[in-house]
């Protein structure tokens, strides 16, 4: 098969999706909040445990 054809982009998705109504502001706000919640959940999963002790133990002596 010629390379050009392999690289051919997939057919565009149905028009229906593209012309879907613009989200109402309230709906958009909800979406942003959901995204933020997901991001915070993700950050929770990588945050160091025992914040108080962790922060207390971070001491840097001597610099510059």
């Amino acid at each position, binding site marked *: 098969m010629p390379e050009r054809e392999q690289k051919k982009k997939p057919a565009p998705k149905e028009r229906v999706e593209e012309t879907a109504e613009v989200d109402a502001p309230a709906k958009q706000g909800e979406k942003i909040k959901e995204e933020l919640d997901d991001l915070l959940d993700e*950050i929770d999963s990588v945050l160091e445990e025992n914040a108080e002790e962790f922060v207390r133990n*971070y001491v840097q*002596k*001597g*610099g*510059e």
Partner: protein
Amino acid sequence: MAVPKVCGIETEYGVALRGAADANPVLASSMLINGYVEHRKIGWDFDDESPGRDARGFAREGAAPPEVETHLVNTVLTNGARYYVDHAHPEYSTPECSDALELVCADKAGERVLARSMQAARRILPAGQEIVVYKNNSDGKGNSYGTHENYLVDRSVPFATLVRHLLPWFVSRQVFTGAGKVGAENGANQVGFQISQRADFFEEEVGLETTLKRPIVNTRDEPHADPQKYRRLHVIAGDANLCEVATLLKVGTTAIVLALIEDEFVDKDLSVVGPVAAMRVVSHDPTCRATVELGDGGTCTAVELQYEFLRLARKYADETGLEACGGEEVGNLVLDRWEATLGALERDPSTLEGQLDWVTKLGLLRAYVERDGLDWEDSKLSLLDLQYHDIRPDRSLYERLVRAGKVERLVDEAEVITAMTEPPSSTRAFFRGRCLARWPDAIVAANWDSLILDVGSDPLRRIPMLEPLRGSKAHVDALFEECTTPAELVARLAS
């Protein structure tokens, strides 16, 4: 005409050894560098080091000039950077760059070098131990470590002139250079969140010290270039930035301001009354509405003061051009982003999330305050503050925000990876880096302005590099192609 604003950034990273009973930061820092550098480490040529020399031409009674520590681990990388242990921190000094965007890339490459160093150290440490580094400037307990910028400045400009104009500059530029911090330190009034990591630590207007009684304008007079022609302005009044837009603005605007000071474009008194206190006033107000008192009477906000500098910069660009500031393209990019940033800071700073570190961090902290109902003393916020700066890709909160598409990048990651090993092509860093890549065994020692080579016959040869823009790819690429041995190189350079 202003001299070209060749620039670089030195970053002292915070370092912690986890899981060990008695963590020694010097040892941990050494381990990072030893782990990263697999080839023989290149020595540093200390002959011309003079960190105790004062730009004002004197040494003050009782002043403590920084000591040069010659016994600690040190190396120079093929990208022209210096990577070493400074006091109790791993320090990465970028190669010399000729414009702000090139430096954004070189600075980011430094973060990747540290990340790789941590990985390497993990392989040699006992199970359960790990070295972690943070690109920030404070431990939150009164200890600060620096991120220093360096700019080439014309020696003929009186140092007092620089000081006069730079004090209001450093006070006001915090609104975009700040990396954000929970709480206050060093005797400063308590505050929930402030713009800068460093503002609390400045105690003098001008001085030589960098560790005690820190001055806003540092007078270290060590040009690392022809001392008859140049100064190297050593800026210690800046934060370590992760956001590329913040680094671009920090370096790009400062380069333009230095050029316009050199070319005498400052047409009015911009001085601030009590700049040390003003540093804190500006930093302690994330609404950017706090005012400082002006030397010629009246008050204004940091943003308003910045608009004065922007006005001068626009005039400078129109009348003189931006050749000395890294060229028209990057210079104009800096001017446009600067103007947009000041407008956004006036209207609503939160619109700069993903561009400025302090705004990005504050957005994250506010989201936690809201979701978890935290008050500003909660240690969880301090943890988020600290971990924002973690350099491990999987733990860095800044990186999480990048991956979530919340942070604007200015350089391709592929370019950053290249800059870990390849020098910038526009400065003498190219010559240094290429020599190291080509003949690592022949380089006995290096410094910013010299290389010492062992060419196989006595004596050792010292190649002076006193012009920061000589030794660029355009100058020496052909030379490297034509020479097959370091002896040939030395002979060609001598002829």
